[in-house]
């Protein structure tokens, strides 16, 4: 038995000594896993034919409460890189990454690409926060990915991350990014024109995940249906919001497909506002199959409802 234990210890020491991750073969595509579909779409735009991208979640899910499935671990096991949102939106990814036994993508690994770095974060608490405020994010609002104005820094982070793994493709990634941003700019001109007449309009959101988008196009988030982030609304809170909608003649309540759409409709009926389901992520609604399509859907839906 002692001999067996000796062999076992030797094997352990040998395993620990070999900590360097195996190099990526230059011939094959980079395998990238994004935690949310918005980042999958942007990584595809930047990576082009040089990457295969999968998402751990679907657009119809609430990313805060994604269930960590072992099938996520299998995707991550094969990944050269993982693109994560950060700011605690996808903190569950740590559990999936640890379960994947993939040294490339652990924190500090070459294949770990965190997007929130370099983002101008909104709603960063300036006072002490605690859970009495609900599921508050101490580092600021993490729902920035569908703000077209932030596509440039997001894609730059992705380019840097991918080029770190495949430096020979940096030029191609840069060119893909440039093409994508040019395409986005042309849409941006159209979107700005569409939103110009409704600039300054107030809207109510169910969950505060549209603030970057609203700010970008000059809309005002007047109220949140959730009592506090992540906590279902109390009747008294709903009464207050309904009163506010009536007083301020707010026309629109934005609700995510994963949220309580029935409740949003009820509040809309009570208050006279219209509850509309937005593309809270790529793939959240039909027709929002990629980054530009999702933003386009939101712009056209909102512009139509606010007129």
């Amino acid at each position: 038995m002692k001999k067996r234990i000796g062999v076992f210890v030797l094997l352990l020491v040998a395993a620990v000594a070999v900590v360097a991750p195996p190099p990526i073969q230059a011939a094959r595509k980079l395998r990238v896993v994004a935690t949310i579909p918005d980042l999958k779409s942007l990584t595809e735009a930047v990576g082009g034919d040089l990457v295969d991208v999968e998402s751990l979640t679907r657009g119809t899910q609430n990313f805060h409460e994604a269930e960590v499935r072992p099938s996520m671990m299998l995707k991550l096991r094969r990944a050269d890189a993982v693109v994560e949102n950060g700011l605690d939106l996808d903190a569950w990814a740590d559990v999936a990454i640890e379960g994947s036994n993939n040294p490339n993508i652990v924190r500090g690994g070459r294949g770990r690409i965190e997007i929130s770095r370099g983002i101008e974060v909104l709603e960063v608490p300036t006072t002490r926060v605690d859970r009495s405020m609900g599921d508050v994010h101490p580092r600021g609002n993490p729902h920035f990915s569908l703000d077209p104005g932030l596509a440039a820094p997001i894609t730059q982070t992705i380019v840097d991350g991918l080029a770190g793994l495949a430096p020979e493709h940096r030029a191609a990634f840069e060119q893909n990014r440039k093409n994508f941003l040019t395409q986005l700019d042309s849409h941006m001109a159209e979107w700005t024109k569409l939103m110009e007449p409704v600039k300054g309009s107030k809207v109510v959101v169910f969950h505060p995940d549209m603030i970057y988008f609203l700010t970008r196009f000059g809309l005002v988030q007047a109220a949140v249906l959730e009592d506090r982030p992540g906590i279902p609304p109390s009747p008294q809170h709903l009464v207050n919001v309904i009163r506010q909608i009536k007083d301020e003649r707010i026309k629109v309540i934005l609700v995510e497909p994963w949220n309580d759409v029935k409740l949003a409709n009820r509040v809309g009926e009570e208050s006279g506002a219209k509850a509309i389901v937005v593309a809270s992520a790529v793939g959240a609604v039909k027709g929002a199959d990629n980054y530009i399509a999702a933003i386009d859907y939101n712009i056209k839906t909102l512009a139509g409802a606010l007129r």
Partner: protein
Amino acid sequence: MRALLVTIALSAVLLPAAAAAQSEDAAALRRELEQLKRQQEQYQRTIDSLSQRLQRLESQPPPVATPPAAQPAPTAQTPANPQGQMRPPSVTDLLRPRQPFALYQQRGAGQLLFDIGVTGDFVGNITQSSVQKAGAGTFSGRENRFFPREVELSFFGQVDPYARADVRIEAGEEAPGAETTVSLAEATLTLLTLPYGTQARLGQMRNRYGWSNVVHEHDLPWVDRPDVYRVFFGEDGLVEKGAEFTWVPDFLPFYLMVLGGIFDGDNETAFGRGRLSQPLATGRVVAFFDLTDTMALQVGSSVASGETPNRLTSTLVGYDIKFKYRPDGWLHPLLTLSSEGIYSMRRTERGVDLNGDGSFDFVQRQTRNSFGWYGWGELQPWRRWALGVRYDSTQYPATPGYQWAVEPYVSFYPSEFLRFRVAYKHTARTNRDLFELNGEGGGGRLVDEWFFQATFILGAHPAHAF
């Protein structure tokens, strides 16, 4: 003679001069000493002043850090303090507490280098007085009490780019009274960067045996651990000191994890040898299948084999299966179904009385096989409410007889961080002797219990897989 006169003359001249010089040196030294004393006093005053200032600053509530907008976090490529801008540290700099000593002060974004969490799990139970006398309740010795079962302080995070550590210290009531037992629940080091899809975890841990053994008490979907674990491994389940190694292959179309472990074998209920020379060996294989986007199935098999204190082999083979249905977009599963079972093969010793004189003539060794399992279903139609029921059936591993139990429950979640649960458990045992020989009277054959549970999470709490 001439030389003597010269020497005397020189001495007469030089000695007073030397004495005068010594006197001057001593005066200079005294002056220097006094100057040093003054400097020291001045330094002491400066230190005192800075210490007071530091205390004042520490006593003020630290503000939440608000990083400047659009400023990227420092990376290896963009060092926060480039070499060219460095300056020598001042006295204030030297006196200021630095990491890790000042970690507690830095509550701003991303400043703490690891996570801290506290969970509290309080349980109340009501049962018959006869059950209380026999100590035959689910929480033996704490029948008809409300008590802190598990208050857990957790520290977890990355040690360096290659490893992470998890430390959990828990306190709870183990016997009636004011005393609370504090113990090390878990302390593990996980090596994250081993090659070929492998990973190692060392330390004291909840063994990955079945799916529910690794779950801490406060995270269990029931008030109590299933009977099969309690009977075969004890109230806390299987918690051991040693190492586990896992391998996740990347060539299969589904997720598979293979685990092997070597442990001391301290678990007194199933093993108890407690020596690495005769270790407890564990193994587990678990596979996961995404049936659809909304339905998933996990199946696993586990084994643990070790020795009892009297060097008898004890082997437990288990199965586990778990199914979840989570409608698209739901924040919680609508339906969860699961079952786990353990087949125990234990060598036992039995005294044989051949001539009927009341004394054993020899000790016979035999293998005693026993089986236990549970089936569980939970329905969560609303975000805040979950209803479930568990059925347990377990033979005793070392004595004849078995017990079965049924436990319906309702859980209420005011938020993600707070939960209340009410459950009723009916247990029936075939063996009267187990609890009736403790000299206190009472009985444990039929047990009816009402449970109340309150659980909170404070601070960080890692997500759980499936």
